[in-house]
Every structure is written in structure tokens, then in C-alpha cells.
């Protein structure tokens, strides 16, 4: 199952730098980065390599099924970011 960025994210983009498939957005080059309070993983592209989990300095990334209870909704929030961006 794909990885999900949850509430502790502070948009520190260390994950963007290590992601081998570029599935985390917005990155520093994307519009909206300056104002982004959190980043999102595109579940359609995530290859479950776990590189971002290690890189995240604030422990904000979880495998979907391991999401702590209050942050379950973040799986959908991550997915929505990309479907809305595509519109």
C-alpha cells in the first residue's frame, strides 16, 4: 500500500529530494510551495520504497494501513490533492 503524509508534516521537502519517482508534491519548484503547510504523496505513483519515511525529519509519513487512528483521513487527503490539481 502507498505511503501517506499525515498531520505532522511541515513541508520540509526532505522527502521530495529522496523520492525516486517524483511522486511528492508540491516541491520547491512547484507553484504553491511557498504557502504549502504540508506535502502530499501521489498514491498512483508511489512505489512503496520507504525512502521518504527515513528522510522525514518530523515522522509524518506512514504506510496507509499503519496510519494512526486520528489521521486515517489523510490517505484520502493525499489522493485528493492530485485529483484536484489535475482538474
Amino acid at each position, binding site marked *: 500500500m502507498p505511503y501517506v503524509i499525515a*498531520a*505532522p508534516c*511541515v*513541508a*520540509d*521537502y526532505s522527502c521530495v529530494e529522496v523520492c525516486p519517482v517524483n511522486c511528492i508534491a508540491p*516541491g*520547491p*519548484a*512547484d507553484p504553491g*510551495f*511557498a*504557502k504549502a*503547510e504540508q506535502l502530499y504523496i501521489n498514491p498512483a505513483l508511489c512505489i512503496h520504497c520507504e525512502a521518504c519515511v527515513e528522510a522525514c*525529519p*518530523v*515522522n509524518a509519513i506512514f504506510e496507509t494501513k499503519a496510519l*494512526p*487512528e*486520528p*489521521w486515517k483521513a489523510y490517505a484520502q487527503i493525499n489522493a485528493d490533492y492530485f485529483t484536484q490539481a489535475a482538474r
Partner: protein
Amino acid sequence: MTPTLSPADPTSVADPSVRVTRTSCGICEASCGLVVRVRGDEVLDIRPDPLHPNSKGFACSKGVQFHHLRDDPDRVRQPLRRRADGSFEPVSWEQALDDIGRRLKAIIARHGGESVGLYGGNPIVWNHEAFSLLLGLGAALKTRHLFAAASVDINNYYVVNQLLYGNNFCSLFPDVERTRFMVILGGNPVVSHGSMMTVGHVREALQDIVRRGGRVVVIDPRRSETAQLFEHLPLRPDADAWLVAAMLRLALQRGCPRPEVAATLGGLAFLQTLVEVATPTRAEQETGIPAARIEQLTRDFIAADGAVLYGRWGASLGQFSTLTKYLIEAFNAVTGNLDRAGGALFGHSMIDIEKLMRDTGQIGYDRWRTRVEGIPEVFGTAPLATMAAEIETPGNGQLRALLVSHGNPAMSGPGGRRLERALGQLELLVSMDPYLTETSRLAHYVLPPTLWLEREGFPIFTMAHTAVPYAQWSPASVRPPEGARDDGWIFAEISRRIGVVPSPLALVRGLGRLGITLGARTLTDLALRTGEHGDWFGLRPSGLSRRKLLAVGGPLLLKPRPPTGVLRQRIAHRDHRVHLEHPLFAAEMQRLAQRQSNDPAYPLHIISVRELRSHNSWLHNIPKLMAGERVQRLRVHPQDARPLGLHNGDRVRVESRHGAVEVMAWISDEVMPGVVALPHGWGHRGGWRRAVEAGGAAFNDLTSSAYVDIDRPSGQAQLTGIAVRLCPLSSATPPATDTVTTSCSPSA
């Protein structure tokens, strides 16, 4: 609910060459618990501490990237002496301190200790030792030129706390965990991570209010990052006092306070008369909020079972910030929300800061006034707004020499250009700063201090308003670079060379003259050991001391939350009641009622913006925090941009009555019409190359330090809600209409 992220011991590491310390962040008031891994002198990484009782595993990109500031190639690593041509040459600590001592002694011999000034910037608040020595050196010199960054931030709190509760540092803060209704006036905690309220995972904690059926209303001229998550009510800049006065008037008409609450308050009749002028019609006219909305908001607030009104930046840095803070406290008080679950709480700290500051003689208001402009002191300090006048104006007590610790007044003080010129006139300016900043580049000596990662300490001030009271005293996580020294050591060495003992206590100064040194750290430890949680030197073995906390190596939970029902005990006034009556507030209300807020030549109002990856003026040199081609942008509402022909990316000149800046426009309806918003802390000069490259302009060039422009009771500068006009400098298309009402002076 904010779960513990990882129950594992955060300090456990397999590699024996790696040393792990648990500390707390020294950048912002959130003071998040952090875990630092070090090999030799290299910081490997900084991560949030999942077991910290208050921050609970939260940290932000500023804290976790702080080692890049430590390793910054632009960091000053040895004392520097300014040459006649403005460049700097390295000198030894001995040479620098000896010459500073000699020059200070000569100035004191000729003009007295009162000609020497001290300025403590915001970061010194996380360095209790240096902060005590700064206050102590001021006391030993008997100087009134003791300035603190609080006077461009929070002095209004300190005045109101003193008058209402009898202690500058008795700051009540919102019970976010239990409140049913929180009204945020001019604050943006989602980005700032909380100020004068230290709440872990603050965004989540605020969202939890809504999740449990409560409400959060954000009142701000800008749809801030916090406002976007909750109910937003736009308010005209610097109209906060009108809004709260009107809410108070309604509350008093609706039967507030209940008799048992009234018994805790003194001066209700005075309050009633004071707010009489704030009729719904007048309030609507001044705030731009419909009278019906104000009424509904007040009704809902009174009806909520535990509600709190919290005012910060916007409510703290207008022209009537003391009056505004007074009205906020009075509103929480009459609605029965002081000292109750879900309302405003008295903090509970490992060291009783109110007592510590009282015992060292700091507590007070208006015991003396500044030499030139006659502005009242606040906890023994003079406001930064008076610094330029004190340097410029000849006479006894003229400010001639200034020691600046971790501060950048040329960038963060009001009337920036005037202050910068004045700093350049000083006979001696010494700056303790890790960078060549707008201020330190003017100094005769720049002395490189240690940073919070590199010294022992704990967040003494933010502990006083922390949601979950805890105790922590952390060791230095890593050795400082060879040339850096702690500010406390620097103050002590300078004091020794001019023959004074830096302490606010006459007893300590007397012992010092006899050769017995009682360091600031020893005295802070003494306050801890003889306090509520202290070990009383072994009489209470379970109690705390510095040594014990260092041995524990991490934070300890003191209580799940601050206690309630302590109002009588915590109010220092003899009658133990909240004092709502003071002629000062009546005078301010009258001044507000007479204010002319519409200046047709300057039809817009500018407010400042806090950004996620900045902290005031000092984090713009870390590449990782500047990623994404960050630039400073002026937010302009489309309705205001159209008649000027202003488009995204256009250069625009912003003019106030006090100065002008040129910035890039960004058209956005996140600001209300008539309001423009600009991030502060940009427009760097000096030796921090990345920060200078980032460009932008200094917000404080638009501000003023003149007596007529500041908040009179607290001397606090007006840093938001300043009248301005816009003059487009470049535009692809001509203005859409020819009815441009503003006239602009020729571009400089």
C-alpha cells in the same frame, strides 16, 4: 487527539560514536522538544522528540534544519573589529574585550553608567543566563537604556498584566485543550506555531476544538493560513479595540458578569463607562464588521461552556495595543472565562517566573520615564521606539555606547532608517551576533556568540504559558565552534573589565565586590530548588534541581494541565482581585474615539505577514529554508489593484508618511479591500549572502518611532495597520481607469 508517534526511547542508538541529547528548540515560542544526534562536532540530524510532554513529537522545518545555521559559512567565528573603511578584521577575544572595556570605562568616567545601553533581542529569551546578566549589567550600571525586543512584540501584555494582575509576567493563555469557542484576533498560530501560548501540534489542537463540536473564529484583515482552516471574519486593520469594546458593552448589557464572577473583579463601573462609546453602529463603522455579526459573536461566546478570546500580533502592534489587550482581558473576565476550564488559564512553570522577576526587582510599570520622550518603563526596560531619540538628543544621560545581544534593531525596530543612522553615531557599538546583519555591520566590534544547540539551557519564558507543564534543563548538544563564546560569558567578561558585578541584586553585587561570585546559573538553579517543584537541597528528595534534570536527560511531566481555581492566589494585588480601573485606559479610549483614521493621501493600510520558514529577521540565510525561489510579495486585493493597473509580478512602490519601499505585487483576495500585506524581515544588507540575495525590502522602513505614532502606555511601536499608498513602477498594461486618487512622489 494527537497520538504519540513512536513510543520508542528517542535516545537509543546502536552506534557508540553517536551522542544523543534531548533538548528544546530555541527559535520560536513553541519550544518543541528535539532529539539531536551528534558525531564528534558534527550534528547528524535534529528530530522532534516524540516523548516530550508538551510538543508531543511536533517540530517544524526551522528547528530540524538549525544545524545548517550552526555550520553556515557566513557565520561569524571570531571577534571582528571594524576598520575605518567599514570592513572588518579578525582580532583575538582578549584584544576585543580589553579594548571594549577600556572604551566603556572612558565613556562611563566622562558621562556616567547611564550613557551605556543594552539591547536584548528575541533569541536571548531562550538563554536565561545571558538574559539575567543583561538585566544585571543594566542594574549595575544604573542605566535606563535597557531595551528589549518585547517592546516591538509584547509590551502591551506586560503593561496590562501588571495593572490588572499585579505582575508583568502573569500572562493568562487559552485552554485550547478544553475550550468550546476560541476567538483568535490578529494571530496566525498555524504559521507562527503559537505565541504567548505554547501548545504542541497547535494546528491539530485547534482543529480538535471543531472536531469535538466547538468553534474557532479567526478575526483578521487577511484570510491567513489559520483563517483558511476555520471561520474567518475580516476586520479593518487596527480596529481591534473597537470590536472588543463593542463586545464588552454587549456582554455587560446581557447580564455579565455573574455575581460570583463580579466578586473577583474591581472597577466594573469604570469599565461600563469606558465602553459606552462603543455602540454597535460605531463599531460597525470602525471595524467593517456588521453590527449583527458582532452581536451574534458576543452571544455565542457568552453561551459557550468555556470560551476564550486570544489576541496576538495584529492586536498587539497597532496604535492602541495596550487598550486592546486590556479590553481582551476584561472581556474574558466579565464573561466568566478567567481561570476556568476552556477559558484563559494561569500558567504553571517549573520555575515561578513571576516570583523570580519580582524578587530580582524587575516587576513594575511607570516607575520612571524615558529621558527624551517621557515614556513609561515596562519591567525596567525602555521601548525600542525611544532608542533613536536617546542617541540623537544631547544632554545628561545621552545614549553613547550600546551592547546588542542577539538583536537586529536596525531591521526590526520602528523607523528603521532613522535608527540605523542613529546607531552609526554611537561612540561604541558592540554586537553579539552570529551574522554580519543590518545592525552588526555598523558595530565597532562583532562578538560571535554560541547558539542554542551549543549551550546548556531551557525555555524559561515559554514554560510559563505551556499547555502541559513540564520540567527540562538540557545540556549543550554539541560543542560550539572554537571562536564562539556564550553571551553570558561575554557579559561577565565585559563587566569584569569595567569593574561591576552584573546582577540586579544588591546582595550579589556586594558579595561580588568581596570576590564571591554567584553566577546567574546558580541563582536560577536556586529559584528552581526552592520553588514548588524544588528539592530544597535534599529536604525533598523527589524534587528537582539543575543537576537532577541534567541527569534525567529529558523533559519530565509536572502536571497534565495548569490548575484552575487559583485566581485569588495568583493575583498579586493586595485585594487579590482583577483591577479593571485605571485612568490610563479611559484616556486611551478617549484618544481612540478621537482618532482620525482616514487619510485621503494614504488610502490603504499595510499589515505584516509571518511566513512558515522565517522567524522575524534571522533565518533567511539557510538555503534549505529559502528553497522554492522564495521572494517577498505584497498582497494587494484585486479591487485595489485594478484602478492602478497593477498585475501579478509588477514592481510597486509602497509609501507611508514615514518612508517607502519597492516590492513585488501579488494580486490576491486573501486580503480585504483597502488592505495590503507584506512579510516582514526581508530586505537584508550585510554579510549574510543568501539573505541579501533574496532581496525584498524592510517593512520597518514604513514605520515610525515618533511619539505620536506609537502605543503611548507601553511605548510599543506600531508595526501593523499603517496608512500607505501604492505607486506602480512597471506594468505591462496601462491603468484600467483614469480615476487614480492617490498621488505618488517621484520614485527615488
